[in-house]
């Protein structure tokens, strides 16, 4: 089932994956590689070597567990993002335990700056108004989503009340819904 050169829907990709069609990996790589690699880089605080390892393992996992993907449980893209996120956070924790990297909040900020410089919007349909999410909301969502931190940990890390953390996450995602779901 070779479909290169023409638009393949997400459903078709899922079918290819479930049918064991290796061509799907190339398609996934071309279409979603940027987001998945960006996520690994973000979670691994711009450590390129670790990000490459996590990204590679994530794509292989997507292929390996592809037959188990169940469209009823959610979209393929969400499923791939979750696999990648989990794999990258696993890498982060293991390496942190070994002392190879430090869980320093500064890394997050550094990564944030790096993100602004290197963000590549070619691979996905990124709306132009991405920056409309306030920095205070973005920061909290990043810590929870990319760093796997609990509300309590974020509260301690940023020295803001627990209630504020919850409200910011909720308001931030509400804002994201208005940005991404209206399209």
């Amino acid at each position: 089932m070779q479909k290169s050169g023409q638009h393949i829907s997400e459903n078709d990709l899922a079918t290819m994956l479930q049918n064991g069609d290796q061509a799907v990996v190339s398609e996934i790589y071309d279409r979603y590689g940027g987001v998945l690699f960006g996520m690994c880089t973000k979670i691994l605080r711009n450590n390129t070597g670790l990000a490459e390892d996590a990204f590679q393992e994530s794509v292989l996992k997507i292929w390996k567990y592809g037959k188990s993907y169940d469209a009823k449980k959610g979209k393929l893209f969400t499923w791939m993002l979750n696999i990648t996120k989990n794999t990258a956070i696993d890498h982060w924790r293991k390496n942190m335990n070994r002392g190879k990297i430090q869980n320093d909040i500064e890394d997050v900020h550094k990564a944030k700056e790096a993100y602004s410089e290197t963000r590549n919007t070619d691979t996905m349909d990124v709306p132009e108004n991405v920056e409309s999410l306030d920095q205070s909301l973005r920061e909290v969502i990043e810590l929870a989503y990319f760093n796997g931190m609990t509300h309590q940990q974020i509260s301690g890390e940023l020295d803001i009340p627990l209630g504020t953390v919850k409200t910011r996450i909720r308001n931030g995602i509400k804002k994201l819904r208005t940005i991404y779901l209206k399209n």
Partner: protein
Amino acid sequence: MNTKEYIESGILEAYVVGSVTEQEQQEVRCLSSIYPEIKQALEEIEDSMAGFATEYSMSPPDHLKAEILKQVDITEQLPAGDTDGKSDKPFVSAVGSGEDKNAKIRPIRKDPNNFPWRIAATVLLLISCGLLYFLMTMDEDYESELTAQRESINALENQVESVESELQEKDDRLALLMNKGTDRIILSAASEGGQDEAIVYWHPETEQVWLDPDNLVAPDNEHQYQLWALKGDQPIDLGVIDKENLQLHQMKGIGEADAFAITLEPVGGSPSPTLEQLKVIGQI
């Protein structure tokens, strides 16, 4: 269960970003499988977060694609259902370490010791799901019962209030009627053989006038009874009688009078009595 409140509580957002407890994760999974509206809200949040993730896109190094495709070529896909059970959830998986570059992931299924635990975990999950559903439903029942009780109490309170004010009114009337200074004047039919009758209770000192029109024939829709005090030859208007309420009620006050009379007048009353329509009269 009030799914709207649940959706608006913020727990779904917390679930998607991964900052909920294990117990809350199970709760969200259970409820989203039971209530389609929760599932839909959850998917919308997931889509939003997927959009958020795209903001961080970065092109991977060129050499990686070839390496990955080479590994795919030598990596067998696992049969459907053969996963770590967590890889499609928005949470950190215990499987898949940084060392495992070649994705040589040993499926848990191959470890016979894990098998009973999986069954037990599934059973536990189902039981907790059922229990949660039961508790939520029970909670809802209590809530609606509580609301019904509150409404009933409110209705009773209103009733008590109205009875109290009615009682107070009756007390006031009784006090007036029992008062030694109150005159009781019977107004008898003005026409010969007429059956109409009314009673005026008058307290000249306080100038209070009460009328009991109980024995007056109910007027038609275009007429109303009107009470007059006669002082010398001068009739003084003491108000019309609501035909829907032919019971004892207070009229305009007067301190001096020689007689009281009631005439039948057009609705709204007249400035001076229509003598042809004089129904009852009583001298003091």
